[in-house]
């Protein structure tokens, strides 16, 4: 397989415009002859479904939750970036592009990122027109705030619920099309296989989660918007149903998986506090606008935080990175928290936490201002921890949050399977080795509103598609595979529950493939995962039947895929013999313990092709060419 | 007129009809009470008030028909709502608790409504559809309240009316869309005061007539 990113030539700023002109078009009258399947209804899937239907395509949209409004994009808190420069701070498309490439530690495609920065402004326009109540200043114009990795205020926000508001905007556009009959909506469906005929993605197999029925749906193209794989770590900020299954089954059908080892660990989450815990809760990065991160200077200082005098506190981010201070990118902030805790300076019962303190901000601006900005976040913190962050500093610790890696896609967002498009967090393309805050929402909506609607037309207009129905033998084959696997899971009848396996997998991943990695640990982790995978298929206990609403069975299928995927993630981490962004291999660091890239040997995307069960995946390399930015040691000092 | 049926037949339309007719009854009660208070000035004042009222002739008939019309709407719509709302939750909770939104008034609205309907029928039989030849309205009223049973029924009915009004009055404003954070506490206050006035104003009359005159 030869990976071709299909990046248009010419100067960076004109690539997308010219490419759009060169793309073949489907005439309005012909659009209704095409059927497109969209899987997932987050920002990417919701916006893509609505936009495609508006254009006239027939869309079938699937989601795993009971309503498309519940996709996990809804939980994004802080905001969405755009290069509007409303604040007159010298922001521009170029600066947003540059910050994103640099923030991603130079492991993203220039052309994709530039396009992202270009359409960022259209996104804000579209969202305001949809009635999204962004925060405004007294003059009635849009307000902005700062986020990590940037020195301009370019983040638009709706309190601490920006993701919710943007998602509900896309959802309402989708609902409008459902009402108009252009989108057929299938909630509570889980995609279990993708059907490839003559090398083209032509449909999917799903399980109806209520009745257990296996359903087949044929189409002319398939769009996967199924989010990230952070739950491979069991504990993450992802929703309980976030999983890798759809992406992984596509991988097994020939779509390459790119850079799976780039997994973002978010610095500001509520620390783990018990072995029963089912998920971690993020505290928005926007809190770092006003909160100051510190630990006691002396290891083991167990005094109450307010009793520790200023002179005995170490504001380590401000001290180490004077120009960005508390607003360094996430990977840098997370690694520094870990470093402090490893030195024994961690706080709280477990010693695995640092303080995020609002005392100064409250003194400076008053409690009211802070409450208006972060009220709902403070309230959420108090609900979970029973501590009042207005009075005592928050305790935070890094947690798995976002997957920069994902299915490999070209400039058209098409994977290595023709007709299979991958959008949003599920693809790999825009964030490199580390995503900047408030950029995930931007990318999801850019892909769905402003990229796919053009590129999918180019594909459909330029491809000959055989007429097929869901009666095609390839569908029957897929259904059989899916049924066999479900039967197998139900028949093992072992002694350990699905969650038990998942939790153990998470521990292995966190211990050996977490914030800081080394070859020895990765190898050990891989072995442990293989053993766990074997035990899973002999000893898992899945109650109930397949003809029914069976949440244990749903989870079993997902954990089975996580177990296989975890190995791929480790293989990727082992292959990348450098440190960059979220991937920190202890063998490659500067004297100051910063990540040390190896641009000579690793300035590439690692794309993995499935070679068969229990076989090493095939490695493909997409060289990254930087023609417009200079590769430099990332510095936030 | 399709649009009118569509608008009034919707759930909000039905609310609107309940609110407007309810508000009409509140106005009627206020007038009725003002008239009744003349009783404290003695039987002549009361009788002359009644005569004045009857001298209005066709106007009073019109008002009566209006009230009847309002009553029919209020009763029929209320009954429909009661039935529909019961149907909307066919299977009830085994534990019922409330979060402090419901009041005794809101909780009992349909039931107090039906009690008041029965009371009004009785009230009309007592004082309206009664042979008034050779007697004064004061004598009829005084006669009726010589019976302690009647006194008890009337006092009870007025307490029920107050409960009904305590929810109904502020509810009218909410339904009409007049809810503003600045004024709602005041409206809710008026609601309580008005229901107390009705309870005391009307409720004390039978007691006064029976035991204090």
């Amino acid at each position, binding site marked *: 397989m030869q990976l071709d990113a299909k990046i248009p030539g010419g100067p960076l700023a004109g690539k997308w415009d010219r490419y759009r002109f060169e793309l073949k078009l489907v005439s309005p009258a012909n659009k209704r002859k095409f059927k497109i399947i969209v899987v997932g209804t987050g920002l990417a899937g919701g916006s893509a479904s609505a936009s495609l239907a508006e254009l006239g395509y027939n869309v079938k949209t699937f989601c795993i939750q009971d309503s498309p409004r519940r996709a996990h994009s809804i939980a994004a808190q802080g905001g969405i970036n755009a290069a509007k420069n409303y604040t007159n701070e010298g922001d521009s498309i170029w600066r947003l592009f540059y910050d994103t490439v640099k923030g991603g530690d130079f492991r993203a495609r220039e052309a994709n990122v530039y396009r992202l920065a270009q359409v960022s402004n259209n996104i804000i326009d579209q969202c305001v027109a949809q009635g999204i109540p962004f925060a405004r200043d007294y003059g009635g114009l849009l307000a902005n705030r700062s986020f990590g990795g940037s020195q301009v205020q370019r983040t638009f926000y709706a309190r601490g619920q920006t993701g919710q508001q943007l998602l509900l905007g896309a959802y309402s556009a989708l609902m409008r099309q459902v009402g108009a009959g252009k989108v057929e909506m299938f909630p509570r469906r889980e995609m279990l296989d993708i059907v490839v005929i003559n090398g083209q993605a032509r449909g999917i197999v799903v399980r109806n989660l209520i009745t257990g029925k296996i359903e087949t749906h044929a189409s002319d193209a398939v769009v996967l918007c199924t989010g990230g794989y952070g739950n491979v770590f069991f504990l993450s900020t992802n929703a309980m149903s976030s999983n890798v299954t759809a992406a992984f089954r596509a991988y097994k059908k020939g779509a390459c998986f790119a850079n799976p080892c780039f997994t973002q660990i978010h610095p500001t989450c509520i620390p783990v506090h018990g072995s029963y815990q089912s998920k971690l809760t993020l505290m928005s990065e926007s809190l770092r606008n006003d909160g100051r991160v510190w630990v006691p200077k002396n290891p083991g200082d167990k005094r109450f935080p307010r009793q520790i005098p200023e002179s005995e506190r170490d504001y380590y981010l401000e001290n180490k990175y004077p120009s960005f201070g508390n607003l360094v990118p996430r990977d840098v902030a997370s690694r520094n928290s870990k470093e402090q805790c490893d030195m024994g300076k961690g706080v709280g019962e477990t010693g695995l936490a640092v303080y995020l303190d609002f005392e100064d901000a409250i003194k400076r601006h008053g409690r009211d201002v802070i409450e208006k900005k972060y009220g709902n976040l403070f309230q959420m913190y108090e609900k979970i921890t029973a501590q009042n962050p207005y009075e005592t500093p928050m305790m935070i610790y890094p947690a798995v949050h976002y997957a920069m890696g994902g299915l490999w896609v070209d400039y058209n967002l098409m994977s290595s399977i023709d007709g299979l498009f991958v959008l949003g967090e599920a693809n790999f393309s825009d964030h490199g080795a580390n995503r900047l805050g408030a950029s995930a929402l931007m990318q999801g909506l850019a892909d769905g509103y402003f990229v796919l609607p053009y590129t999918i037309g180019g594909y459909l207009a330029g491809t000959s598609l055989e007429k097929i129905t869901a009666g095609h033998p390839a569908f029957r084959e897929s259904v059989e595979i899916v049924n066999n696997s479900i039967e197998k899971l139900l028949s093992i009848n072992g002694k350990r529950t699905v969650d038990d396996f998942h939790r153990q997998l998470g521990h292995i991943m966190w211990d050996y493939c977490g914030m800081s990695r080394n070859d020895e640990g990765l190898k050990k982790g891989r072995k442990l995962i293989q053993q766990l995978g074997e035990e899973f298929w002999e000893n898992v206990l899945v109650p109930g039947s397949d003809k029914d609403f069976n949440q244990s069975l749903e989870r079993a299928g997902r954990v089975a895929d996580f177990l296989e995927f975890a190995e791929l993630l480790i293989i990727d981490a082992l292959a990348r013999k450098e440190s960059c962004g979220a991937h920190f291999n202890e063998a490659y660091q500067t004297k100051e313990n910063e990540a040390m890239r190896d641009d000579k040997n690793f300035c590439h995307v690692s794309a993995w092709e499935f070679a068969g069960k229990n076989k090493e995946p095939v490695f493909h390399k997409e060289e990254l060419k930087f023609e417009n930015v200079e590769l430099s040691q990332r510095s936030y000092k | 007129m399709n*649009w009118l049926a569509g608008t009034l037949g*919707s759930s909000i339309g039905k609310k609107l009809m309940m609110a407007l007719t309810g508000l009409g009854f509140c106005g009627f009660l206020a007038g009725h009470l003002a008239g009744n208070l003349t009783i404290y000035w003695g039987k002549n004042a009361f009788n002359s008030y009644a005569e004045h009222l009857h001298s209005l002739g066709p106007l009073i008939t019109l008002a009566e028909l209006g009230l009847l019309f309002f009553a029919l709407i209020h009763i029929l719509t209320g009954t429909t709502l009661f039935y529909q709302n019961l149907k909307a939750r066919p299977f009830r909770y085994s534990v019922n608790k409330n979060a402090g939104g419901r009041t005794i008034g809101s909780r009992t609205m349909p039931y107090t409504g039906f009690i008041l309907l029965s009371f009004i029928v009785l009230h009309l039989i007592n004082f309206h559809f009664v042979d008034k030849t050779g007697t004064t309205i004061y004598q009829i009223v005084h006669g009726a309240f010589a019976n302690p049973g009647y006194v008890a029924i009337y006092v009870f009915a007025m307490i029920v009316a107050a409960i009904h009004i305590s929810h109904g009055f502020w509810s009218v404003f909410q339904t009409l869309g007049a809810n503003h954070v600045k004024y709602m506490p005041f409206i809710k206050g008026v609601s309580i005061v008005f229901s107390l006035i009705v309870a005391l104003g009307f409720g004390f009359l039978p007691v006064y007539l029976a035991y204090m005159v």
Partner: protein
Amino acid sequence: MTKTINLTLKIWRQKGPEAKGKLETYKANDIPTDMSFLEMIDVVNEKLTLEGKEPVAFDHDCREGICGMCGTVVNGRPHGSEKGTTLCQLHMRHFSDNDTIVIEPWRSRAFPIIKDLVVDRSALDKIIQAGGFISVNTGNAQDANAIPIPQETAELAMDAAACIGCGACVAACPNASAMLFLSAKVSQLALLPQGKPEAARRAVSMVREMDRLGFGNCSNETECEAECPKEISITNIARLNREFYKAGFFSSEK
């Protein structure tokens, strides 16, 4: 060390939409009070699974109070008795040792039960389909700052837009009415200049759809407002009423 408590749970079990359900009693012992309510059910389910029984089906997803997927009636209160809290954010520290907790699904004709505590809330999506949107195709928009919107208006719209569509208002309403849910959407869009062109049509068709779906009628009981995990105010219902009258009596909407 965290405190632990022992609980008796009475959980509604129902095999399917047509099946007859009943409350079953389970023990949940040594529950740390730092645990969330859903994690407590997880623990019970793990135990049931290992005993060879079927675990309790319940909806949940983000577990941080925003997706609106979770929600059951706990001791007669949707999402439990803490104010402004979804079930996933309710922590066991609000319960005492030896408490008995009755857990039931949302009950409404418009929300048929799928299994145990899981209900079908697609009726809420249908209400949105009837008009809970602004008709702006992708690419149609003008510059985001072209129309200034007073901060107060944007904040009011945001208050309404905070709705997570969990259905607790329906579950809490003595009449199983969806007025608070509906009014939150109508309010948000009616407040904003972008929503004005379609305001009349939106109000009329969304109310019609709600009535058609078998929800009850609002009778201003205000239980919805008291139980809403996002504390959405009934002033939105008043605004919906105004919008509906405007549309019904003063526009050409039928």
